[in-house]
């Protein structure tokens, strides 16, 4: 480490103003910050109370995501790796270009977006689509609004939403049958050319014909779906880590999962023929993954505690509504986007109520 630090000290002057490579100073800073502690502190959300700065915050999320990455490698094969690399490369390029234009340091927020994005895609999504979706998500979801900390929406979800609307046929036929046995698909490279591995069905698609066994869904065995979302067990491992380190707010997670399960349970009670049990929906699709890793994004979710409850309940209810009563089988993506839209209003409402209470005192 010391050697590395010396190198950085040595080369840093050429990136300073007047230096040869001053234009790409943000890039240099990002690398330095990634290796050592950042020198600058956050000026806008995600706010941090010492010792949790953005960088460490993002590192925690990445550690939390690792179990899901491992699970997706096991279930869907080596293709996960190029997907992650492509996502990092394109999104990173957009990020670097914008920080150079803006002359601002590169924000580490991208490290999370670049990893989450492939995890919420179907396993056989063509690589050019991964690149396009990630670039779109970072550009429209984040940079247009002013970069990290100012985005209204979760960039990864914006990217996925773009792909789902733009290439519906490809997106709905890129599911892969997961591997089993000791090695799973660890030694395989499954792409859309591999017809035998491709399926069009996820548990939510199949729900009309019969429900997948719940214990399978918990472990993620034989469950097709997006890369990171299939194994509830792995999501819980990473998610609970995030809750314990207080990186993800427990109020958001509990309110989303709770409201979704309760609402679905009520529906199930009313008409068991038509609606699946509440717990089943908890393990199906992206509900859990979204609740732990995406809805908890500190920038695009409300910042007040009361607001987080309302935000979570809103998302939970919308997911169930979309899953049961609309043309889409999975609603987590749209639910989080709608939640993101509502987040500033929710905060505003909480503030005005608080103010009124203060005045009355």
């Amino acid at each position, binding site marked *: 480490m010391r050697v590395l630090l010396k190198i950085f000290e040595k080369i840093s002057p050429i990136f300073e103003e007047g230096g040869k490579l001053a234009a790409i100073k943000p890039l240099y800073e990002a690398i330095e910050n990634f290796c050592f502690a950042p020198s600058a502190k956050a000026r806008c959300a995600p706010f941090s109370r010492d010792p949790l700065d953005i960088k460490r915050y993002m590192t925690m999320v990445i550690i939390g995501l690792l179990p899901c990455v491992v699970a997706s490698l096991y279930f869907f094969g080596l293709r996960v790796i190029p997907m992650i690399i492509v996502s990092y490369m394109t999104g990173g390029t957009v990020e670097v270009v914008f920080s150079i234009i803006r002359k601002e340091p590169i924000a580490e927020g991208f490290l999370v977006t670049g990893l989450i994005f492939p995890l919420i895609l179907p396993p056989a999504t063509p690589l050019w689509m991964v690149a396009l979706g990630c670039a779109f998500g970072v550009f*429209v979801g984040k940079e247009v609004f002013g970069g990290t900390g100012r985005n209204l929406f979760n960039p990864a979800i914006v990217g996925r939403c*773009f792909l789902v*609307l*733009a*290439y*519906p046929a*490809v997106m709905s036929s890129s599911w892969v049958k997961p591997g089993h046995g000791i090695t799973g698909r660890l030694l395989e490279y499954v792409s859309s050319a591999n017809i035998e591995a491709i399926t069009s069905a996820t548990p939510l698609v199949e729900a009309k014909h019969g429900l997948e066994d719940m214990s399978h869904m918990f472990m993620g065995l034989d469950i097709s779906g997006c890369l990171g979302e299939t194994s509830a067990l792995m999501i819980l491992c990473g998610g609970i880590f995030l809750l314990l380190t207080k990186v993800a707010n427990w109020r958001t997670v509990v309110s989303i999962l709770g409201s979704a399960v309760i609402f679905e349970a009520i529906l199930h009670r009313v008409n068991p023929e038509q609606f699946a049990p509440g717990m089943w929906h908890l393990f199906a699709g992206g509900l859990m993954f979204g609740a732990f890793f995406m809805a908890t994004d500190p920038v695009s979710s409300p910042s007040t505690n009361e607001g987080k409850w309302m935000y979570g309940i809103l998302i939970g209810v919308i997911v169930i509504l979309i899953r049961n009563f609309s043309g889409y089988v999975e609603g987590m993506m749209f639910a989080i986007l709608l939640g993101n839209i509502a987040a500033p209003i929710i905060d505003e409402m909480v503030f005005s109520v608080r103010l009124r209470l203060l005045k009355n005192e």
Partner: protein
Amino acid sequence: MADKNACMTCGGRGGLCGGKGIATLKEGVWTNNPLAIQVLGICSALAVTNKLSNSLVMGCAFLFVCVGSNLFVSLLRNNIPHRIRMIAEVAIIATFVILFDQFLKAYYWEMSKQLGPYVGLIITNCIVMGRAEAFALQNPPIVSIVDGVANGIGYGVALAIIGFARELFGSGQVVLGNLVLDLGYWYTPNQLMILAPGAFFVFGVLIAFFNLVKGGDGEEDKK
């Protein structure tokens, strides 16, 4: 073309338009483009621009209505009782819109089916109403026609640009009569472009482009 004639007749000093012709034309088409600068009439701009041909027909319909209503409002400008001027304007606009709609239904059935209710909705398009209220009511007929033409062209061209981009990226090829521009088999059509949300993105880029070229009165001035 009508706009050229109008331009020539009013080019001279103190001509038929009192020297206001070219300024009016430029204002409608460029500096104050109804769609890209004033951001008016978005409803139809989002709904019908999924194809170049649709955009062009919509542009024609708009041109016809805008010129017609401007002309008649201007002719009647000294006779319309002030109290009911808005209603009178709407009646005139509606007449022209329905005339065009009937014409499409009779002679271009396919096109009329594709445009659906949006030709009829020109009645509520605030640009037409705005031009009648803000311009034709205060100006003589010929310069009002020029204003109608300018706004019609400004709106139509903006629609055509959006329509072209959406059809090209949305279906991989642009078809206009016998002319076909094809992106080739390697291109996977982007369905989002066909949907109304796709129009928002193209529209946003168009506005950005206008502001960039025109330079100026955007947010950059505030810095």
